[in-house]
């Protein structure tokens, strides 16, 4: 006796039909969206790749110095970036950096308001929480297939995949930070006549900034972890080096790509952590 009904065929066909329907009816809109996102990415990429490497090294050092006020820290961050160039991955690293920056930017744009909304409404939280779980656990290729069909191969579906994978911790940590703002700090705001907006911008967001910064840091690290998959759908960058090593059975090439990703992660992480600590101390 057959105890399993066949749900596979209708689900598969239904999903395929909806994608087709989306492409036929909204193909232009998706393309317009893809182009505007691509425009931002290409702009950042052009700046990063166009600038002479010494300028990028200098900016890295200045940024590190600004957040840490320590010379050795600034020198170390700059040395990390120099190592990337020495490994022959400068151009790829700049492509990857641009992709990560845009992905984190989009994640913040979407994740911050969503996290705030979750903290304010238990209803929204109950709705969003399982979606976040799904976003983090579903294999990227599952949504990369339709994304590539809607946006074309290349950088835009890579950004999309990265955002889907990397945004959840930001949403969660924003929500956590805002719901942990002390009751009295909130009451003080309300008692002195703050509006909802003044409470949000003057009390809730500043007091949950350490948590939000932690979320942005997590998001950045996870975005970097996605670069290999991103390169599989044609986003190029350091991920491509790893991919080449894989395809050509060239372990050394894979190691070079892997090292560069790790170095980028360390430099970004340290600069952001130092920046977060500075914010937390309340200094400006």
């Amino acid at each position, binding site marked *: 006796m057959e105890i399993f009904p066949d749900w596979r065929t209708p689900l598969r066909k239904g999903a395929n039909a909806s994608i087709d329907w989306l492409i036929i009816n909204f193909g232009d809109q998706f393309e317009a969206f893809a182009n505007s996102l691509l425009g931002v990415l290409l702009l950042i990429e052009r700046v990063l790749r166009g600038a002479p490497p010494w300028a990028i090294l200098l900016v890295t050092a200045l940024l590190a110095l600004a957040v840490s006020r320590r010379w050795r820290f600034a020198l170390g961050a700059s040395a990390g970036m120099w190592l990337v160039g020495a490994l022959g991955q400068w151009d790829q690293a700049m492509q990857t950096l641009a992709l990560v920056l845009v992905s984190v930017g989009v994640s913040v744009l979407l994740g911050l308001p969503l996290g705030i909304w979750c903290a304010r409404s238990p209803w929204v939280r109950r709705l969003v929480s399982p979606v976040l779980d799904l976003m983090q656990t579903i294999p990227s290729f599952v949504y990369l297939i339709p994304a590539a069909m809607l946006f074309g191969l290349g950088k835009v579906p890579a950004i999309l995949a990265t955002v889907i994978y990397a945004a959840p911790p930001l949403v969660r940590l924003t929500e956590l930070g805002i719901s942990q703002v*002390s009751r*009295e*700090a909130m*009451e*003080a*705001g*309300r*008692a*002195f*006549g*703050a*509006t909802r907006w*003044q409470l949000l911008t*003057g*009390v809730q967001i*500043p*007091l949950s*900034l350490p948590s939000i910064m932690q979320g942005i840091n997590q998001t950045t690290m996870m975005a970097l972890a996605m670069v290999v998959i991103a390169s599989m759908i044609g986003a190029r960058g350091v991920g491509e080096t790893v991919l080449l090593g894989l395809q050509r059975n060239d372990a050394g090439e894979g190691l070079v790509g892997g090292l560069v990703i790790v170095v980028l992660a360390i430099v970004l992480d340290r600069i952001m952590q130092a920046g977060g600590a500075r914010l937390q101390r*309340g200094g400006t």
Partner: protein
Amino acid sequence: MALIEIRGLSTVFGPHPQAALEKVRAGMDKPGLLATTGHVLALDRIELDIEGGEIFVIMGLSGSGKSTLVRHINRLIDPTEGTVRIAGEDVTALPIPALIALRRRRLAMVFQRFGLHAHRSVLDNVAYGLEIRGVPRAQRENEARAWIERVGLAGVETQYPAQLSGGMQQRVGLARALCAGTDIILMDEAFSALDPLIRSQLQGELLALQATLGKTVVFITHDLDEALRIGNRIAILKDGALVQVGTPEDILLRPADDYVAAFVRDVNRARALRLHNALAPWPQTHPLPALARAVDVDAPIESVLPRLVGRSTPIALRKDGRIVGCVDVDAVSALLAPQG
């Protein structure tokens, strides 16, 4: 008309407060309501008049509803039933923008755990009330500096709350409330988290400030000694209902019921009661002493105890520059150790 009028104020916490309140009206008591419906009757038919310019103390043990009650005055909590009027204006019926305007204009608050904003410097914390009202930076910082100095904190303007001791943080809380320039200040267990020495200091400073500022202060405390020291009038709250409202001496000498009587038993009566409570006519048999040797009738009994103990002659009391009577050991003993 009193400045703050609270009428028929009842508040139930839980998912269906209205329905729960009907059960109370039908005769259910507070523990019964909690047991059968899970609702908490926080306040039950409170009637209060708070006059402009007085320090009005609401006192009760934890869970008596005192912090809930004070949060109805600036409507941080909405009542289930009843009204709060400030200068005749029904706070409970105000639309949100008008409520915000009222809080900015008339109501400041000081919190038990200070409620300071950790990301703002002392200066910015104190200026907060003016900042959200849109007062320009230079002006609000000037004003904040003046208040910081007034509460004895000059020099710490640029520090952050976490760098200060509890007593200093609460001075910041007090300066923030004063800087807002409101005529009413709500103080929710403002000194309860401080150690006794600092608490006593701040009580004294509050009284000194109040003597020149003449604000209306609604002060919440669980400490009867504190209530007696700073309150012009005291309301005693038990299980969400008012037990007694009166002057400190009313509460001490004429407790409304056994609960209040038990409450006041451990009070240092010699400090809380003033000499006029033991006032008797000057005995004909003794010659009238010089005015310089007389004691003010409003001085605490405590102040004459050393002169009184072990002596049979009474001490003369003066009021408005003339001798109005005396106190003797027997009268004072009767006051200090009543009914066994």
